[in-house]
């Protein structure tokens, strides 16, 4: 049987107007590789990649993407990109020092490098042209400031990948500026029922908690469920976006979201490499380019909904 509501048909109806125009550049077909420290199937990184792919399509660039969460594997992937003699390299520097050697090799091979997302402090040192992104600590601090402004007294920061530097920095930054009590909870981000039970357990154990801060869109959705389970008036705030975050913002169940515009990081990374190769341009003269943090609230929800549903915000 068919469903008369929702589903693909509804989406198609909504998206009738949208159309994409093909760009036309005259540069030869270059090859750009992006190597990130993302785990597989991470929505945030998917958005980064979408931006990069869009820019590559526009700039007549062959775009190669690879990712691995482990330092040594990410280094090997960068090396593999160098072996493939790419024309440009985009790298995340979540594990700063570890990349020093291999980026030196890229430099020696004459490959221009731009760092994205994390690792602003290493970028120039390792000879990158520029850095596009946002320091996780800075984002955390922005979240903390917002929490303080909203008068949250007791915050629970949910880290869904234990030992992940970026997530630690987000929580760490927020702890620094939030003012009130601040706790951390580790959950298993690939086991949502368990994560949900863990957060509700924590809420049951500590009645003082008045805010849950999650670090990704999907975890925000799980956090909302946990709050429901715990039957307590707890506010949920989050980093990054997602369909459920936007609908949460709209409905008022999500207080605010800290966004760093992942699409922009990917898009600008590729585009700047293209500009550099075709015209030796460099945005900001090589100074780091910030893509966030941006605090989004109920007011922004309506405007964002369409882009989030499309997977580009």
């Amino acid at each position: 049987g068919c469903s008369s509501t929702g589903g693909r048909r509804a989406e198609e109806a909504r998206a009738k107007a949208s159309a994409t125009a093909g760009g036309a550049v005259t540069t030869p077909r270059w090859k750009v590789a992006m190597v990130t420290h993302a785990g597989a199937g991470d929505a945030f990184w998917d958005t980064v990649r979408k931006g990069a792919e869009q820019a590559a399509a526009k700039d007549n660039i062959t775009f190669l993407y690879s990712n691995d969460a482990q330092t040594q594997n990410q280094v090997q992937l960068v090396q593999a990109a160098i072996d493939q003699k790419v024309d440009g390299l985009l790298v995340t520097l979540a594990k700063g020092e570890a990349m020093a050697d291999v980026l030196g090799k890229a430099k020696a091979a004459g490959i221009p490098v731009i760092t994205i997302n994390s690792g602003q402090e290493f970028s120039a040192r390792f000879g990158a042209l520029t850095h596009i992104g946002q320091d996780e600590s800075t984002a955390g601090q922005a979240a903390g400031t917002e929490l303080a402004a909203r008068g949250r007294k007791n915050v629970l920061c949910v880290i869904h990948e234990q030992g992940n530097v970026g997530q630690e920095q987000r929580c760490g930054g927020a702890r620094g500026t939030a003012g009130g009590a601040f706790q951390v909870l580790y959950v298993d981000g690939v086991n949502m029922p368990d994560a949900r039970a863990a957060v509700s357990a924590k809420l049951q154990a500590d009645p003082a908690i008045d805010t849950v801060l999650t670090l990704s869109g999907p975890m925000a959705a799980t956090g909302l469920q946990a709050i429901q389970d715990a039957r307590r008036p707890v506010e949920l705030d989050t980093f990054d976006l997602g369909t459920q975050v936007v609908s949460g913002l709209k409905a008022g169940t999500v207080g605010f979201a800290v966004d760093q515009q992942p699409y922009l990081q990917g898009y600008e990374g590729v585009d700047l490499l293209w500009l550099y190769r075709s015209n030796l341009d460099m945005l900001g003269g090589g100074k780091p380019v910030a893509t966030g943090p941006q605090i989004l609230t109920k007011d922004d929800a309506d405007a964002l909904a369409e882009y989030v549903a499309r997977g580009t915000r």
Partner: protein
Amino acid sequence: MSSSDVLVQGRERPAALRRLAGRPELGALIAAVAVFLVFAAVAEPFLRVSSFGTVLYAASTIGIMAVPVSLLMIGGEFDLSAGVLVTTAALTSSMVSYQLTAVTWVGVLVSLAVTLAVGLFNGWMLSRTKLPSFIVTLGTFLMLTGANLGVTKLVSGTVSTKPISDMEGFASCRWLFASEVTVGGLTIKATVWWWLGLLLAGSWVLLRTRFGNWVYAVGGDAAAARAVGVPVARTKTVLYLFVGFGAWVLGQHLLFSFDTVQSGEGVGNELIYIVAAVIGGCLITGGYGSVVGSALGALIFGMASKGIIYAQWNPDWFKFFLGAMLLLAALLNTWVKRRAERGPR
């Protein structure tokens, strides 16, 4: 024939006592009680009724899979793909319903067909190639992980599925897979009923049917079982189908309770299912164990992982405590079993 002519082979202690001591789950039961007592003592919120619901929910989401996984282990095989298969089930159901704009029940049924097909594939590969199940299901595990991501991106354009809560049939599916009832402060989720049902069915099949006898036999000594006419390949394949069924149930719960599904989920959970089975008394080499034990294993895991949170121990050391708890539970388990076997003096 006079009874004196019959050799009495040694003299035996009362059989009932020995039978209790020989039950694979006795140790797990005592370990579960011990873990409960520990947290009851150190974590005041642990004893609240509402907390009990949370722990039960956590245990049930492990336990639903631990039932077929323990049966499979008694049958002498592993399934490393069990964790991601749950995600596959949820993704399939969601994407089929969404893309066809069909009543969600269509997706639910297609999803069942897919999980059973994966189980069939595992069983078929195992019996045809004679490869160890560790390798076969590791292959399936990697392929499913890749396919979950690849297909989702291909179909949805993103790494997660689109919400389907506004579709027809969602409410009834949700009722079946993700509803909850609250009785006197205790919230019981649908997964708990499913768990209970699977537990009873699995236990009955194992202990009271001819198929259960075969499961023990193929795990204990496949060559001997084959020699007396047990269809070894078919038995193992059916066990993989069970795992597929369990993954389907849990996958539907995942979908209808969270509305959207991330394609990267489920990785690593297969180990937790195996742990639950082993803590519950299943031998890793097969041929021994019980379904009830796996439920106790799931309960221990659920209590330990949530108990640490209720007790508010330093979260940095969470995994450390969890590992220590598991080790202690397993130790207590074997100690009890050995004591029981030795019997009263």
